[in-house]
């Protein structure tokens, strides 16, 4: 359908399923009640994590650039969004501008590509910490609130998030099916071979970082709408850097469904379990054990393991027939 036909038809299946999921998600406000902030509020956080996971998967999954500093973009987007909202800008333009800032930040960070892969991962880890004083210096303050006057209509906010999520998922899908995507996969597979074939590795890596940074910053800008006020300590929060990576790892690095599945599962267990084990912090225990379990039993992530299982069954069936 979209040109190069790189993906097997199973990917098309997943794409349709995801589209269906998004449409269904779009119907939720009708069931829950359009102004039911509580219910909708529980769901929007999933949208943020899915988007963030998608952004990480682009960089770390497809292009093979394992980066542990995506929180830098996220936090930056959050802060920028707060500044803009205070200036009277509405949420969607604020998100786009935040995204642009993220893209510029990505451009500034391209020198890090000189680092070898594991050093790249560790080097990017410290970048959010370094951004914090810079932000404080230029903004001359550390607290960024959304003025109480701006009330974000819950339903509208929800749909905005849904849009952000959907555009990200399918935008990346289209990107990966284009020429750019093919080059990225080549780089992710074998950087030296690609470069020997004439692929301008640096340019493609830059494009990936810029897009990934843009998306992550948009997610951060949106996140402000959830938390209302942000402090520069958000830069110190390693969760935004590490969790997207783990979500994608659990779901399956470099797959289409991986980030979505991983983000939903991860968030469901950490947020959902809170409700189930009301009153204790027992869910943390369950959460940690589940992570260790997945890591040992499904080291390649859920989707790849599933695929292997399915294809093995298919092979067995066809050999049984023969």
């Amino acid at each position, binding site marked *: 359908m979209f040109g190069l036909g790189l993906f097997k038809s199973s990917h098309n299946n997943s794409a349709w399923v995801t589209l269906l999921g998004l449409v269904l998600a779009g119907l939720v406000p009708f069931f829950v009640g359009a102004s039911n902030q509580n219910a909708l509020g529980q769901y929007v956080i999933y949208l943020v994590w899915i988007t963030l996971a998608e952004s990480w998967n682009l960089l770390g999954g497809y292009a093979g650039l394992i980066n542990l500093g995506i929180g830098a973009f996220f936090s930056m987007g959050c802060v920028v969004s707060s500044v803009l909202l205070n200036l009277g800008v509405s949420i969607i333009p604020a998100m786009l501008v935040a995204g642009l800032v993220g893209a510029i930040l990505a451009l500034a960070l391209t020198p890090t590509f000189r680092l070898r892969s594991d050093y790249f991962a*560790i080097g990017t880890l*410290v970048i959010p*910490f370094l951004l914090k004083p810079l932000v404080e210096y230029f903004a001359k303050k550390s607290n960024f609130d959304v003025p109480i006057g701006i009330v974000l209509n819950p339903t509208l906010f929800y749909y905005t998030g849904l849009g952000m999520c959907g555009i990200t998922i399918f935008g990346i899908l289209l990107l990966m099916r284009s020429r750019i995507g093919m080059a990225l996969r080549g780089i992710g597979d074998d950087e030296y071979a690609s470069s020997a074939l004439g692929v301008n590795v640096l340019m493609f890596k830059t494009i990936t970082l810029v897009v990934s940074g843009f998306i992550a910053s948009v997610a951060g800008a949106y996140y402000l709408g959830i938390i209302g006020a942000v402090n520069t300590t958000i830069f110190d929060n390693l969760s935004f850097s*590490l969790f997207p990576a783990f979500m994608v790892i*659990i779901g399956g690095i470099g797959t289409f469904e991986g980030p979505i599945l991983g983000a939903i599962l991860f968030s469901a267990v950490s947020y959902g379990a809170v409700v189930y084990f009301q009153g204790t912090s027992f869910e943390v225990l369950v959460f940690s054990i589940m992570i260790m379990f997945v890591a040992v039993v499904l080291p390649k992530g859920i989707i790849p393991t599933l695929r292997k299982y399915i294809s093995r069954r298919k092979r067995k069936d066809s050999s049984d027939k023969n």
Partner: protein
Amino acid sequence: MPVGLTDIVQNLVNGLLQGGFLALASVGLSLIYGVQKILNIAHGAFIVIAAFVTIDFSILLTPVLHLDPLISIVLDFGVLIVFGVLTYFGLIYKTENKGFEGPLLATFGLSIFIEYVITNGLIFPITISPTQSYRLVLIPVIDPSYGNGAIAQNQAYSSNVLNLGGITFPEPQLIAFLLAFLTIPLLHLFLTRTYYGNGIRATAQDWEAAEFSGIDIRKTRILSFALGSGLAGIAGGIYAFTNSVFATEADVSLLPLILAIIILGGVGSVIGTLIAGLVVGLLISGSNFLALEVLTQYSFPSDIGVLLTFLIFLIVLMVRPSGFFGKVVK
């Protein structure tokens, strides 16, 4: 605010003492990462375990058995070796050959697990008296005002202070420093003078060649992981000596710094890590001092020392990725 010479020297001394701890905390991970290229995210959590073991020791056993809390350092070493071996067989062994993601995810889960267990205790509570109730193995002294983290509020050691010419050396800090300065050269000797130690170095440099030479790689990996964990244990004990208040979240804040030190010192170089740790300790202490007490006219952020370390770390990484003491790697 007038700054005297004693203030400066005091500050340097504090920095060195802190640096000793940092060096010890980092050297274990440097060993593990050097041999297996595995980042044990739970390394910080290992340190915290040991810290709490030491605290418990000094609260429970010292009054009863009149044992010097220093002995708890040996206990820390032993406990963490066991922990390291368990972790290796439980999490690492199955995942180490299937790409980097497995161990990363598994140790991440482990770190959360450990944090939870320390904070909330895993075994049921024992009530000794109406005002004292403990849990069996890990006994955090919980300060409810802090929220979820368990805080140890007793200093594991004494608050004696050695006074030399106006410079104060808190006794626990001094002991911690001496311990670091004892352990690391011992480690270096082990790595260079024994077959198994050399085996670790060889495996870190070229594991296939090590296999061809008849070195048992599996045993080497277990050894390095266990040893690295044990070293984290010693560091944890020292941490309990030198900090009167700490929370389980300490492991999260330590890890980026430890990573920076490992790379600055050169992965796998023990002496390099020692020097890097000391330098970073001095850097943090010195820049905090400079920024916050001398140059107060510019309002520097309060954690400027750490930030400066990260900045230098990034710069060094870009310019010389193998750190100051590592060999140039392709």
